[in-house]
């Protein structure tokens, strides 16, 4: 059997909830696939659509943006902006033909280590059958 495809995923995690939730998963020694590379940002609201395009153009097979639960943003309302802005990005990506699974958003609080591991597991499982992302990959 051929080895399963290992997608490379860039995960933008907000410092206060999702990165803390990922830390909790670590402290609790929960296991998830090593396919994600976390980039800690202050708030999901600071994630510019350009970051997502940039990650895809540099060859990411998937991108995750994870923030505090709506209503629980450490910065009051940053995640609401993220939700609106990134919903448009998602539509745009789908419009240009990218599989919708490749860009996802989630809300993970600082106490949801288990949820974080589950999201990563699901994401990797969904991306594996899609194979490498070549649509937006920069060609040299």
């Amino acid at each position: 059997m051929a080895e399963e495809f290992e997608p490379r995923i860039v995960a933008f995690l907000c410092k206060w909830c999702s990165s803390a939730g990922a830390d909790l998963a670590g402290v609790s020694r929960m296991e998830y696939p090593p396919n994600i590379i976390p980039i800690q940002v202050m708030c999901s609201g600071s994630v510019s659509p350009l970051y997502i395009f940039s990650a895809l153009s540099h060859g990411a097979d998937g991108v995750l943006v994870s923030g505090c639960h709506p209503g629980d943003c450490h910065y009051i309302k940053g995640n609401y902006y993220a939700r609106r802005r990134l919903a448009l990005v998602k539509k745009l990506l789908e419009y240009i033909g990218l599989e919708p699974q490749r860009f996802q958003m989630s809300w993970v609080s600082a106490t949801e280590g288990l949820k974080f591991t589950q999201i990563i597991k699901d994401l990797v499982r969904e991306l594996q059958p899609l194979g490498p992302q070549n649509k937006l990959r920069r060609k040299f």
Partner: protein
Amino acid sequence: MKRTGVFVCHCGINIAGTVDVKKVAAELARHPGVVHAEDYVYMCSDPGQNLIIKAIKEKKLDTVVVACCSPTLHETTFRNVSKIAGLNPYRCEIANIREQCSWVHRDKSKATQKAISITRSVVEKVRRNESLEDVSVPVTKRALVIGGGIAGIQASLDIANAGFEVILVERSPSIGGHMSQLSETFPTLDCSQCILTPKMVEVAKHPRIKLMTYSEVQEVSGFVGNFKVKILKKPTYVDPDKCTLCDECTKVCPIVVPNEFDMGLTGRRAIYIPFPQAIPATYTIDEKACPGMFDTAIACGKCADVCKPGAINFDMKPELVEVDVGAIVVATGYDLYDKSMMAEYGYGKYPDVLDGLQFERLLSASGPTRGRILRPSDKKEPKEVVFIQCAGSRDPELHWPYCSKICCMYTAKHAMLYKHHVHDGQAYIFYIDIRSGGKNYEEFVHRAVEEDGVLYLRGKVSRVFEDNGKLIVWGVDTLTGKQIEIAADMVVLAMAIRPSKGTEELAKKLKIALDKDGFLAEAHPKLRPVESMTSGIFLAGAAQAPKDIPEAVGQASGAAAKAVAILSQERLFHSPTVARVLRNLCTGCAMCVNVCPYEAISLKEGKAVVNEILCEGCGTCSASCLRNAIQVKNLTPYHIQEMIRACLGG
């Protein structure tokens, strides 16, 4: 070209067990701009720190990356190390290869590859970091304590006695909380009110404590040292300065509603004082119950007619009070789990099925029966009482998975006190385990068994139903494997402890997190148990987790000490990673002004200007700017782009 140093920590085997740290260091040594890379068993240890200092000096490093645990743990440590070595602390960054790598993966080669990617991206970030100086802000030397139970009272007194002003906000008409409802306290059988009321009086008389009862926190903004809080003072319709506590008003009030203080076992009038020792000692008109308050024309006004000092004022309006505080202690306490959720035990259906707090009121000398244990249904003395522990606790399938912690002890106390009142009665306790960890607690349970003949049955109760005037309790004794049926006169449920009603809403206003069960989440379960994740907001009492009185008091003093540590500073320093406007790019479109959650951006002469004291550095502005004209220092789009490129190996 930058001169970056990379320091890879083994953390014993915590990192090195899964990540090949030597390989990470070797790979990073080849990364452009990295002039020094090494690994060490414990970077946070003294020799580890010295190694970094030495390398910074000898190799003339201008940026440093430490690949180790989460930045929440040692970012400060290593930034201080950089400072000691003469490097600006903001030129040091952490690559989290423990919590987000070695601890969550098993495949050594994949984890190593991931650790390399993470460290590379942080190297690319730090190379673009600039030297920054902390922004300094003044501190408002006043604390807000939310919740006037024993924890809030203790925190207020400690902060006030340390010399700072305190505003104590309590939503009900009196402070005292659940402790004021209790009869005696375990394990000494001290009278609860007798030890509590002196503290309540101390709060009321303290020159530095401003007590705001019947008030609720509406809105919280600002940050550590400089919170702005809006408090809604609900109208009591009684002027406490004029009220003489003559009690004439309650004699004429025609309305009777369930008395919350007696847990519904008695009634109270629409105008009432919660209990005789209430602080502040005054009456309140419950506007939901009073007919004079309806918009309809029914205006009763009997209380006002008999009030000789003229203390009653129907025109009193809600008042919104704005206060500035430097630190906040949240001590909002608990409520019992809704008993209607336990239909199998017949609560609500049978009047003689009570919860723990109702039983406390029956035991209390000031309670509805003046301390005599009588059945609510027929006012007869119950001869057989069944106590059911873990009602709603330790039940992950149907109710709550956690242990409510105090029920083992208070049930032992209940059974003991019952026997002290009804000598010929029999008390049965159904339990799963007896958890009596605490000073003199185990001895107390033994006293209940040995001196008072309380019968402990290990097992759960499946059903309680009425038959011929008796409450039939069906249970199982798992030690003998036998089914048990007891024909009881009264059943007392030790209901699970839940965070008090409104905790979730308040947490949202304060922007602090809840744990999976809805209690307030502490910043670190072991090392920061009284702090919330938000700097300057501290936790005390059962709002954080079920706890008994000594624990609540201890945590309150801890939270007070933490608050005092902030209030005693002249100035606080706040992170300089705030937004900056590139004036030549800014078109003055004001998109950033509109999205800023802190109103930290304004337009001056057609360009955006950032107030560095208000800015929290969230970066929402930066993502909204079409021209990248506003950027958070040391986390600009340029930083992120380079991190993306580096971690994907492009």
